[in-house]
């Protein structure tokens, strides 16, 4: 077989083309599309800005296009591309520090005139795929490869952290470490790493910006400064709580419509959903997310390919991390860090990257 890779590949391709439609996971596609369009509606409700909604709609179609492109692609052919795309992504991550968009105080965006995008979102997507590809290039993963990935992960983490963007930098750390861990990093190192992490907490605390410390502190007592640092959390909790069982109705949430919730169209979009659709709406949302995550994990569990396993496993966990951390911070059980709700929050780069994630996992699924 190895002697004639070309013929094999062609054969395989024909076979696959025939059952491509069949193997396509509709659960994933439908839940993602449902989430995205629901997200558009919620962005409109939260911002009351048709312009912002249309803009997000355009990103959505670009993202869906990318998703389907990747979904129909052959990931084996793409692997080399994934492997090397790490370097341009890293390059952009460095570039943004020197040429950030001037519209923001942080160095998160690169301004391309028509639109801006976040290299940090790109790296948290490229890094795990590239790492997985790198780690699985041989049958058995070598320790020095793992250490290299860890090193680069910390580099990326650092570059994002100094933008500053604590939320995304933690995600980058997670996304970079997971391929190493899943591919068989010895438990003893994992334990010692976690132990070291806990030990370094005071150092991390000291290196935090004042506003970041404030966010952590307000978590424990948001009522201490209702009009200051605690405002976001207090208002967001009021929104979630006042939604009750069935919510106040679409476009009827007083907290969001009257601008009591900050960033209601981006990071705090969950509180708008909870306010307008209540506990029932939240359950529905979590149910759809549940289906999506479950189907994505299934790819990892069912695939016989290590690369597919590592990539879909990592990306699923990262997706779940986003969802759980965003919701937790919105309802006041985690400090406020900039972390959007996947498929729902306003923000072009995040949406497109998330859709590309799904596209890749869909393409991996064909290996099942």
């Amino acid at each position, binding site marked *: 077989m190895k002697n004639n890779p070309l013929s094999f590949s062609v054969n395989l391709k024909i076979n696959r083309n025939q059952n491509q439609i069949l193997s396509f996971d509709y659960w994933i596609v439908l839940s993602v599309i449902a989430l995205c369009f629901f997200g558009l509606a919620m962005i409109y409700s939260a911002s009351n800005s048709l312009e912002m909604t249309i803009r997000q709609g355009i990103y959505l179609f670009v993202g869906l296009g990318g998703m389907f492109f990747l979904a129909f692609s052959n990931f084996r052919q793409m692997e080399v591309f994934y492997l090397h795309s790490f370097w341009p992504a890293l390059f952009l991550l460095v570039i943004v520090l020197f040429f950030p968009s001037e519209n923001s105080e942080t160095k998160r965006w690169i301004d391309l005139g028509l639109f801006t995008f976040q290299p940090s979102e790109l790296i948290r997507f490229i890094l795990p795929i590239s790492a997985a590809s790198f780690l699985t290039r041989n049958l058995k993963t070598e320790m020095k490869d793992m250490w290299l990935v860890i090193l680069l992960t910390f580099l990326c983490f650092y570059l994002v952290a100094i933008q500053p963007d604590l939320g995304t930098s933690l995600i980058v750390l997670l996304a970079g470490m997971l391929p190493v861990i899943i591919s068989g990093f010895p438990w003893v190192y994992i334990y010692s790493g976690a132990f070291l992490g806990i030990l370094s907490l005071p150092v991390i605390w000291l290196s935090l910006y004042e506003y970041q410390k404030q966010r952590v502190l307000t978590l424990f007592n948001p009522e201490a400064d209702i009009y200051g640092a605690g405002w976001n959390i207090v208002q967001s909790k009021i929104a979630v709580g006042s939604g009750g069982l069935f919510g106040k109705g679409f476009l009827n949430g007083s907290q969001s419509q009257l601008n009591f919730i900050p960033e209601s169209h981006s990071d705090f979009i969950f509180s708008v959903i909870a306010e307008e659709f209540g506990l029932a709406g939240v359950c529905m949302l979590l149910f759809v997310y549940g289906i999506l995550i479950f189907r994505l994990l299934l790819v990892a569990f069912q695939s016989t390919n290590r690369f597919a396993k590592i990539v879909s496993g990592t990306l699923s966990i990262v997706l779940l991390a986003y969802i759980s951390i965003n*919701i*937790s911070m919105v309802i006041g059980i985690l400090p406020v860090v900039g972390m959007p709700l996947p498929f729902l929050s306003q923000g072009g780069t995040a949406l497109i990257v998330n859709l590309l994630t799904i596209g890749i996992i869909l393409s991996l699924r064909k290996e099942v």
Partner: protein
Amino acid sequence: MSLFESKKDSNEVFRIIVFLSPFIFLLFSAFLQILNLSYFKADDFKTQSESNRLYQSKIFPQRGFIYDSNNILLVENNIQQDLQINPNIIENPSFFLKQISDLLELNYSKIESDFFIRATGKNPNEPYFLIKNLSEKQIAKISVNLEKIKGAEIISSFSRNVLHKEIMAPVLGYVGNISKQEIFNNPELTKYSGLKVGKTGIEKDLDSALRGDIGFRIQERDSYGKLVRNISIEPPKKGKNLRLSIDLELQKKLFYEFKGRKGALVAIEPKTGLIRALISSPTYDPNLLNTINDYDEVRNLFSDQDSPLFNRALSGQYPPASTLKPFVGMAALEAKTISWEKEILDSGEYLVEGDERPYRGWKEGGHGKVDMNKAIIESSDVYFYSLAYDLTVSNLSPFLEKFGFGEQSGLTIREGTGILPSRKWKLGYKGESWFKGDTINMGIGQGYITATPLQIAVAYSALANKGELVQPRIIEKIGEENTETVIKKNISLIDDLNWKRIEKSLLGVVEASNGTANNIYDRNIRIAGKTGTAQVKSIIETEYELLRVDKSLRDHALFVGYGPVEEPKLVVVAIIENGESGSAVAAPLVRKAINLYSKK
């Protein structure tokens, strides 16, 4: 190989599950928190969200108008526009204030200091008035630039406007913000906070009628405090209008007669007790206090030596002086210590056994032999010294009490009571026992006895009514309700003829050639009256001519009269402080008042 594969496979899946689990756990705890918020604590948060968006604000009622007895408007309300600031919305206060000061051409540092003083005092998020009483030009400028100065809003309110300022001030009084003391005295007022209430005068006495009821507006506002829509409105209730008994025409003419001199005048309709004119001079512009725009002016007003805010007609306590004599005479007739015809020799001095110094009469050499008629007409002091001495204070005071001396007339709680001295009073207030000399002085309305012009007017109304003591009134109508005449009591004498006799003597004061107020004689409209010269300082020790040098120690001039005698329409008391001669200074005022009113 396949075994190895599957083992490796399970290892990867296991690791995925291990690293998935903390997030599943996190999501699960988040779900529990959501359940807690939106199910168990939902009501709590619903209330919070309602109070977040709903603003209840007061709509202040329009205070009732006040008219004179001929339905001439005396007090109205102006619409005042104030600039209200909502600190919630202002992001950069100094920039905001700079814009305001540029726009309105106002001194920046003054606005800034106002802003920060107000901002530190209260709830920092509560809206408050930064600039009051905007001019039309300022309003126009603000309205055009409202978008630029986010956080500013023009709020209309009513301000009280007294139309005949000084002339009506002592009657009407003024309004002001509710003080802590007022809330302490009347906790009901808390629900009227923000409203101005009457501080004195009619504004105070009838505050609850004039005030009206506050309305409420529930509005939906966004987190910047910007109005989204009105939810509900409960309109305010306008205060009741009042009609006073004051005759503006009469009041005005008499006021100008005072020419700024210190004094008071009260004109009462004896049959009804309705007060047709009430003057206290000097006076003030109540609008200065109704809308305080200049604190310096207000400070001057309160520190004025002539106390323009003091209502002399109601609260000024003067010795009634000779105006008391008719009552002393009646008391003696009642006690039968003298008869109408009995004559006493007035040699200009009255000597009491045991007292070394004589009590002097006002006229050197005396009036010769005088009976009561002559004693009243010529105002003999010696005659009444003697009368009082024989009568004793124990008989005199209770009789005077019948005519309302020593107690409030019931017009308002703000009036003075005067002093009706008695043995008990002197022991209590002075810690001394009563001397005969005290009674003698009281016989001519001097010494400890004092009365307000209103009290004297009420007492003379009873004379004019031949015994009917009316309750003075100044309100004719509250809203649609008329007030009614109240006869407090009917004073009866043992001999009804004495009413006539006294009236004849009082008529003599004006009409007899030897009458002390002969200068105001007018046969067309006959007035019965009595002059008085109230000593500011006892002249027993010092010669009056020495005292005269200091104007504030000169005698007060009094005159009280009623007329036309046949059918008394008006009882008028006039006091000019330090005016010296009752007949020359005070009597013409009374004549003028009665003439003006009789012609109506």
